[in-house]
């Protein structure tokens, strides 16, 4: 691997790593302010209970306690409830009822963390436990307790019904199809579990009236605007600083009650207040992901041509509808579920329900629920292959969209920008030695080998980089992003962007984009992000948006600078702008390449005494806003090989081949790192991760003892490949890759395990395929992985 710095795209070490490796990162919890106080949250032990009384007197009397804030305190300020990103409301601190275990009930502000925590034990809350809705499949039953009686006239737990595609056409195809297969499947509730939990440090300055909030947010500008709209604080008096973030994965998009509590705590005490959540709080109360109960159906011909696909989904949104996605899309981008295949028609119906669990649903690198969509279609393809007795690779090859069909409009209205799917699948199969693997499997089966071998495939198409703003907004804020580029007199540059890295390496990648467009070294470009006082407005980093949107903004703003540089160069060189041509880093006279000026010389001149041409006031600096014309559609083919011990149920992932096509790769090393992480996620979800609840609503995955993250031991040495199909509408042809592997890999692992179990006549089993679940599947026992094991 080269370590020298490329003058643009190419492999280079991450600029941010020096500080992370040396322990010099600056996370919210590292920020210390003079006089800072500490907050702690009292949480509900019950899934559903009426609050009869809250007595804070003993806590208030504890020396060192500065304030105890309850729902009642907040109600007085009009802040007991806050709007969610899905146009619902969520309790900041409970007033009437608690609606999930772990819900916020009171907030203590004290001199240190120990006292704050001690004080929680002195708060007395009198609860009257209520029957709860734990099994989402019972949420709409007549007898189900009504969770959201705070909403006017609410008599059930129904949130929304939503559909996409052509119902009549789909029904017609199904009616006359030669083959119809149906499969129930649950994409269980999981959690992104970033290593840095959530938290906030709020500092309200009574003298200037300025509120500064340090908070690990993926969308600092959206937070600022929402604080302004909700709390009525003037927006120019709010500064949100999102410093280094220890992982976000979509779990740090929304505003959590603790943030509001820290702000109120600072306003009430006049001191900075820091609140950092602990691990269990993070797992119990912040945005979970998925929880989709799906019934998928596929219609095909006898020889394996897929004609139609449809699905009914019961979506468990928890106690408040707080999914973080473009507001017009209550099921996110789930309706891209026709996947990578040439399918005539498709239809989906999604019903969202309340349950007595934490709110969320859109997180964990899901590209607004494309994880669920890909899992559905990729599992259905295998189920169909099983029923037809066909090889799953052959079935996929037969149905994949062909290169000449792009741009392709899907049956649910998506316009896929570019792709050559068969080429990518063929490469993955070649890397895997697919035929040899199948031969080995056949031989082992024939020999009665007790260890079962399985081969699983998945082919995914992602849709990332939302907007366009016309179609996509969050609470009315259009999904576009700004960039600002300053070039100092010596030719060094500072790029300011509205998105915020949670570990993706923006400080390197974005510097490389500027470097590529301006012909300077990435070392000469500083990337500023995560501070609303220092960066232009934009919606932030999630849904793999950064490169498709902010990356495009970075390229476009650099081109503006380059164009200004051209005007300055024409003045310097005393030729008409049209007589100049650009070679990386330099404008020179056409036909006379020696006669020219470097970008550094031009930068100095633009700040100097040269007579500047019409239209240039001075400096090269520029700003821009990028409103994407369409989403970008990265895709890939994954193949997983597993060995299963049927006597213990243990699964060993032997190999994993991943061929990703994310268009142009800016820094291939960073791209590969993103893929490695996502593949590990896939193994985690497929084999071990799960948040189940017992019948009383107790969270059974509220620590890392119970909620398992995969380690290097469970991961094989990844075998990566690439094809490059540039996005035709993106300025540098890049497509975004942050979530691809998380979206695409779970299905490959599950398909591999089920392929191994095929001799037992098993067609499907739900994630996670833990040893006990594999064993139970072999016993032929039905499993509900979302409920407690009994």
């Amino acid at each position, binding site marked *: 691997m080269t370590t020298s710095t490329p003058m643009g795209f190419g492999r280079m070490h991450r600029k941010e790593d020096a500080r992370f490796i040396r322990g010099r990162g600056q996370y919210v*919890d590292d920020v210390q302010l003079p006089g800072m106080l500490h907050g702690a949250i009292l949480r509900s032990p019950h899934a559903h209970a009426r609050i009869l009384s809250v007595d804070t007197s003993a806590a208030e009397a504890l020396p060192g306690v500065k304030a105890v804030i309850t729902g009642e305190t907040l109600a007085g300020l009009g802040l007991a409830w806050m709007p969610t990103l899905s146009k619902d409301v969520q309790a900041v601190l409970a007033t009437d009822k608690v609606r999930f275990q772990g819900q916020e009930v009171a907030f203590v502000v004290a001199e240190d*963390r*120990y006292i704050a*925590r*001690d004080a929680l*034990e002195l708060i007395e809350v009198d609860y009257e436990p209520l029957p709860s809705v734990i099994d989402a499949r019972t949420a709409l039953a007549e007898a189900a307790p009504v969770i959201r009686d705070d909403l006017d006239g609410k008599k059930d737990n129904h949130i929304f019904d939503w559909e996409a595609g052509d119902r009549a056409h789909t029904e017609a195809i199904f009616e006359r199809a030669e083959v119809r297969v149906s499969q129930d499947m649950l994409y269980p509730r999981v959690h992104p579990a970033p290593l840095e939990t959530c938290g906030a440090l709020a500092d309200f300055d009574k003298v200037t009236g300025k509120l500064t909030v340090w908070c690990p947010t993926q969308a600092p500008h959206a937070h600022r605007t929402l604080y302004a709209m909700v709390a009525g604080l003037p927006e120019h008096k709010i500064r949100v600083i999102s410093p280094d973030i220890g992982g976000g994965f979509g779990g740090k998009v929304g505003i959590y009650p603790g943030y509001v509590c820290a702000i109120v705590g600072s306003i009430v005490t006049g001191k900075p207040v820091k609140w*950092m959540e*602990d*691990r*269990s709080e993070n797992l119990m109360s912040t945005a979970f992901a998925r929880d989709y109960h799906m019934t998928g159906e596929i219609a095909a011909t006898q020889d394996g041509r897929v004609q139609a696909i449809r699905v009914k989904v019961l979506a468990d949104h928890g106690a408040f509808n707080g999914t973080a996605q473009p507001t017009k899309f209550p099921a996110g981008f789930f309706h891209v579920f026709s996947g990578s295949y040439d399918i005539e028609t498709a239809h989906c119906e999604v019903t969202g329900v309340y349950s007595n669990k934490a709110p969320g649903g859109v997180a964990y690198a899901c590209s607004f629920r494309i994880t669920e969509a890909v899992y559905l279609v990729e599992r259905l393809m295998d189920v169909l292959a099983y029923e037809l007795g066909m090889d799953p690779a052959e079935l996929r090859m037969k149905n994949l969209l062909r290169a000449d069909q792009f741009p392709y409009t899907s049956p649910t209205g998506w316009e896929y920008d570019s792709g050559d799917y068969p080429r990518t699948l063929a490469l993955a199969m070649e890397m895997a030695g697919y035929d040899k693997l199948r031969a080995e499997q056949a031989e082992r089966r024939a020999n009665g080998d007790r260890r079962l071998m399985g081969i699983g495939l998945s082919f995914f198409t992602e849709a990332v980089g939302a907007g366009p703003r016309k179609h996509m907004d969050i609470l009315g804020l259009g999904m576009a992003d700004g960039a600002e580029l300053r070039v100092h007199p010596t030719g060094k540059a500072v790029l300011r962007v509205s998105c915020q890295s949670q570990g993706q390496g923006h400080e390197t990648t974005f510097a490389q984009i500027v470097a590529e467009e301006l012909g300077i070294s990435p070392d000469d470009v500083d990337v500023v992000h995560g501070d609303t006082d220092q960066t232009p407005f934009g919606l932030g980093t999630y849904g793999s948006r950064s490169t498709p949107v902010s990356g495009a903004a970075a390229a476009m703003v650099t081109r503006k600078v380059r164009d200004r540089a051209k005007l300055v160069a024409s003045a310097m060189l005393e030729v008409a702008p049209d007589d100049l041509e650009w070679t990386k880093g330099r404008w020179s006279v056409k036909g006379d390449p020696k006669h020219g000026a470097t970008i550094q010389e031009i930068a100095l001149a633009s700040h100097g005494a040269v007579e500047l041409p019409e239209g240039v006031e001075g400096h090269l600096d520029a700003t821009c806003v990028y409103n994407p014309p369409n989403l970008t559609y990265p895709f890939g083919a994954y193949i997983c090989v597993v060995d299963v011990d049927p*006597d*213990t*149920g*243990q699964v060993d992932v032997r190999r994993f081949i991943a061929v990703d096509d994310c268009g142009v790769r800016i820094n291939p090393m960073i791209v590969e790192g993103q893929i490695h992480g996502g593949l590990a996620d896939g193994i985690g979800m497929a084999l*071990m991760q*799960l948040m*189940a609840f017992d019948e009383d609503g107790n969270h*059974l*995955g509220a620590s890392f*003892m*119970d909620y*398992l993250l*995969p*380690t290097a*031991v*469970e991961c094989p040495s990844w075998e990566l490949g690439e094809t490059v199909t540039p996005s035709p509408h993106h300025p540098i042809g890049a497509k975004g890759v942050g979530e691809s592997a998380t979206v695409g890999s779970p299905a490959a692992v599950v398909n591999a395990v089920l392929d191994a179990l095929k001799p037992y006549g098993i067609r499907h089993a739900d994630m996670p395929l*833990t*040893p*006990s679940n594999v*064993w*139970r599947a072999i016993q032929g026992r039905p499993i509900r992985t979302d409920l*407690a*094991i*009994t």
Partner: protein
Amino acid sequence: MQVPARFEYEKATSVPHALALLERYGPDARVVAGGHSLIPMMKLRLAQPEALIDINDLRELAHLRVEGGELAVGALVRHAELLASPLVAEHFAILIDAERVIADPVVRNRGTVGGSLCQADPSEDLAAAFAALKADAVVTGPGGSRTVPLRGFHQGPYETVVEPGELLAELRVPVRHGAGSAYEKVERRVGDWPVAAAGALILIEDGLITEAGIGLTAVSAPGFTAPEAEDYLIGREPVDAVFAEAGRRAAAVCNPHADQRGPADYKRHLAGELTRRALRKAARRAAED
């Protein structure tokens, strides 16, 4: 961040000093060794001791040696030390097998053998390994030392025969020449507590089993063992069918509880399957010896 409740802290400089401190602070004091079980419980406020007596400086509890035909393992021996010991590897493959799958390197660097056994978690691996080896525990108190068979050391989940004011000093394991031993565990992920695990010790003379030890954990086997299955093995040939039957008998004494690691019948099944596998591997090792 999780923070513990208030507590006093004392660093003991010798065993008598530790015992004196325990007496001074009374039953609400706790010994802290590696702290890998106790500190998390304190942070979660499941444990709120008034004082911690730190025994990490007590070198006299950190020995690992063979004396008088027995392996003596001081209570303060770290998991990592046991795992790295050539002496242990020579005589007790089962302990190496077990240590390899206990927690992760960070926990193993600090966590101690004594702390593991005194924590008395019902899923604890070393309890099964030492039960299979029929080890003895030496407990020290103000009135001197007493020796307790490991199989009678645990009184129930999180309870042992170590009284307040006492310390576990060491474990003693007879060295049996020619014996083979092994440990088999099913975990959901590396570093996880066992779904179920079994350890086996086997001595073969003239083609017949003359001594057998079986240890089981996470499956509520009384005393972390299965004596009836051990008895069954004596005098029989070390063959698969015999091991399978011993496995069935071992599974029969288990009374596992369902939890998110698996339902009861799966765990019982594993108890049998893993006993069988551990016996087979132990026998193979005995033969190789």
